[in-house]
């Protein structure tokens, strides 16, 4: 209960784990570009191959990827059926009069479903192999050049850092408040949806009040420790772009190039 963090990080020592978070963010962006460039199902083999290689190199068990896909299973089925129902085509496989099942519809439904699976699996590879702290660091530094356009890279990263820090604290606190209200006879388990939502008020209000107080006290503590925004700030842990990072980016770019060539050749 106390160790829930945003995303699910699996600590490890693999080639992928050791990459600079910026590299991994870049890899994910290129991977997403790949899946979106593809318009035909068989070309998805290229990003799929990339994902498999990444998975093997990371040593992450396939179970984690399947877990990441679990929450979207209903969305997947829904999208699949929707496309099956409404995609028109010429190769009729089954004719019910009011509706025809076409080969195009099957192909299109499969294509979209596989693409979503690949996207979610790829994105979860990033959070599975990168600790939230490293991810925050990566985001801050990757977006730092955008500061000239007033993009609040530092503020965003600081918000993420604080959120990560306080998730376990607030979880503990909500558990305590819940116990206390249950001791006063509160019932969170019975009644219809409306009643249950209403019964959460005695938990939510103290939690909000406490979060505000925490925010207030934290702000004072940060100020006392000379915090004055991102201006002129340094970091103890410097991110280092190593040979492995270069290699990873080059391999990814090769995949993109191969895909583009294939797409042009088989247009």
């Amino acid at each position: 209960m106390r160790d829930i963090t945003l995303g699910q990080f699996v600590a490890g020592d693999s080639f992928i784990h050791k990459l600079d978070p910026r590299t991994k963010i870049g890899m994910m962006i290129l991977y997403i570009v790949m899946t979106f460039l593809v318009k035909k199902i068989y070309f998805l083999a290229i990003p799929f191959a990339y994902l498999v290689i990444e998975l093997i190199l990371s040593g992450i068990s396939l179970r984690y990827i399947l877990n990441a896909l679990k929450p979207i299973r209903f969305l997947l089925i829904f999208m699949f059926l929707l496309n099956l129902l409404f995609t028109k085509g010429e190769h009729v496989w089954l004719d019910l009069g009011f509706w025809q099942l076409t080969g195009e519809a099957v192909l299109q439904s499969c294509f979209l479903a596989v693409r979503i699976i690949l996207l979610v699996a790829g994105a979860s590879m990033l959070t599975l192999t990168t600790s939230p702290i490293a991810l925050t660091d990566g985001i801050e530094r990757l977006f730092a050049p955008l500061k000239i356009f007033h993009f609040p890279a530092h503020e965003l990263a600081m918000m993420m850092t604080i959120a990560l820090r306080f998730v376990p604290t607030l979880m503990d606190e909500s558990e305590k408040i819940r116990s206390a209200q249950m001791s006063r006879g509160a019932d969170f388990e019975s009644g219809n949806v409306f009643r249950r939502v209403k019964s959460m008020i005695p938990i939510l209000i103290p939690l909000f009040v406490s979060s505000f107080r925490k925010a207030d006290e934290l702000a004072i503590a940060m100020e006392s420790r000379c915090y004055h925004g991102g201006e002129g700030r340094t970091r103890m842990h410097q991110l280092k772009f190593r040979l492995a990072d270069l290699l990873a980016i080059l391999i990814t770019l090769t995949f993109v190039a191969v895909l583009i060539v294939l797409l042009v050749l088989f247009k």
Partner: protein
Amino acid sequence: MSVVINHLTFAYTQGGKPLEPTLVDLDFTIEEGSFLGIIGHTGSGKSTFVRHLNGLLPCEKGAVVVDGHDLSVKAERKTVRSLVGMVFQYPEYQLFADTVFEDVAFGPRNMKLDEAEVKNRVQNAMTLVGLDPERFSARSPFDLSGGERRRAAIAGVLAMHPKYLVLDEPMAGLDPLGRREILALLEKLRTESGCTIIMISHSMDDIANHATKVLVLEKGRVCMYDTPQNVFARAEELQKIGLSVPAVTKLCIEMNRRGASVPASICTREAFLNWIREEKKHA
């Protein structure tokens, strides 16, 4: 009637697997009308233990029976929760309603009492903790001072008329005046309403002065369960497990080290001064 703890063992689980047990074979009876002080350092299982007294944690091995209601029976929990009031650490952090009245009324309303009875109980509870109902009923709990908020939260538990009042460090973070007020309230509840008090505290002086029985927990086991005089007489053992002793006990140890013969059972200022007077008479 009493609270019977019968061979209670409990372990938290993590990822479906049980961890090292937090409570091991607790077996004793808390008599009605007593003032039980629970001591033990952080992680000794004190808070886990008191959570069993009103069924917030399930009894998997052993049983907790409050006035004949066995808490392992799920249907009994609701009854027991109106018998056993729980004041958690920093209870003021659980205040939520718009007014003090509404907050204190939360418990009684959950007990499905009629509105006249709710009002009656809320006003009594507020008076008991020293918050004048006329002045405080309509105020927001968030506008009160720290000490007042604490007392408002305690009133919310008292309004349920618990026979057993369990408090987890009720004086933490209060100033000396606030501490004294809470202790006086607890004494009053016990002597006037016959309420049984079960209090976790780190203040050995408070325990020595107020408790009638002391439970010492160490690594989830009962290390001692006796009167404060007998518990603090075993000062050396307490210090060995990292607990402190009342200031007077400390003084007596120092004196005995210098050749005096102060009885080991003396742990309060009153008892010590009486002993001095006796000594003077004999001298």
